[in-house]
């Protein structure tokens, strides 16, 4: 009887380990996770540190030198900021298709850093009060 109990306990532990492995494998191979990995690979060290801490990162527009903050999200997630980091204006432009947040953010970063005027020419502006900081701070 004691042996049967031990067998059941070890089977339970094995099942738990398997379930955890399954959860991790699929958790890290979701489109979302792949998009985040790609984004992080293409960020500068400073942007990466900022993103890991705050779920956003700042970029400098290549044409005007203005600063933009790209929040985790797929729409209405780019804010033009002042030197103190306060949002002044929202810009909404996204890659077409239904891409995951990491991909959207990377496309926005590249667009602002390599063709700021082109990106803003097609963007829609929105007031910064539309979304609170809390809106963007949702966990992954």
């Amino acid at each position, binding site marked *: 009887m004691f042996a049967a109990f031990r067998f059941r306990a070890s089977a339970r532990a094995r099942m738990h380990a398997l379930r955890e492995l399954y959860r991790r494998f699929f958790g890290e191979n979701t*489109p979302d996770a*792949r998009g985040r990995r790609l984004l992080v690979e*293409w960020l*500068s060290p400073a942007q990466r540190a900022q993103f890991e801490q705050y779920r956003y990162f700042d970029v400098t527009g290549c044409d005007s030198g203005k600063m933009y903050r790209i929040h985790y999200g797929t729409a209405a997630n780019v804010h033009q900021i002042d030197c103190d980091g306060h949002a002044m204006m929202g810009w909404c*432009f996204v890659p*077409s298709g239904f891409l*995951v947040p990491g*991909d959207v953010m*990377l496309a926005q970063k590249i667009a602002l850093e*390599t063709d700021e005027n082109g990106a803003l020419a097609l963007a829609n502006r929105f007031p910064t009060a539309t979304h609170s900081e809390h809106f963007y701070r949702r966990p992954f």
Partner: protein
Amino acid sequence: MATQIVMDQTGDTRHEFDPDNAEALARAEQRFRELTGAGFTAAFRTGPGDVTRIKSFDPTVQETLFYPRLVGG
């Protein structure tokens, strides 16, 4: 090996090719033309966090990223 990374709904799709293989290189160049012709933007990294856009296929680039045409949200 060089890689072309295409953003899509799965996160991304990666196409690896040997730049020393003429046939693979031609296929990669064809893919580049098709994607940019369809409105994708091509870019590559020049340093940590530094990105440059390219309009024509460059066989010396190790990793090229393609993202779909931008639209106003």
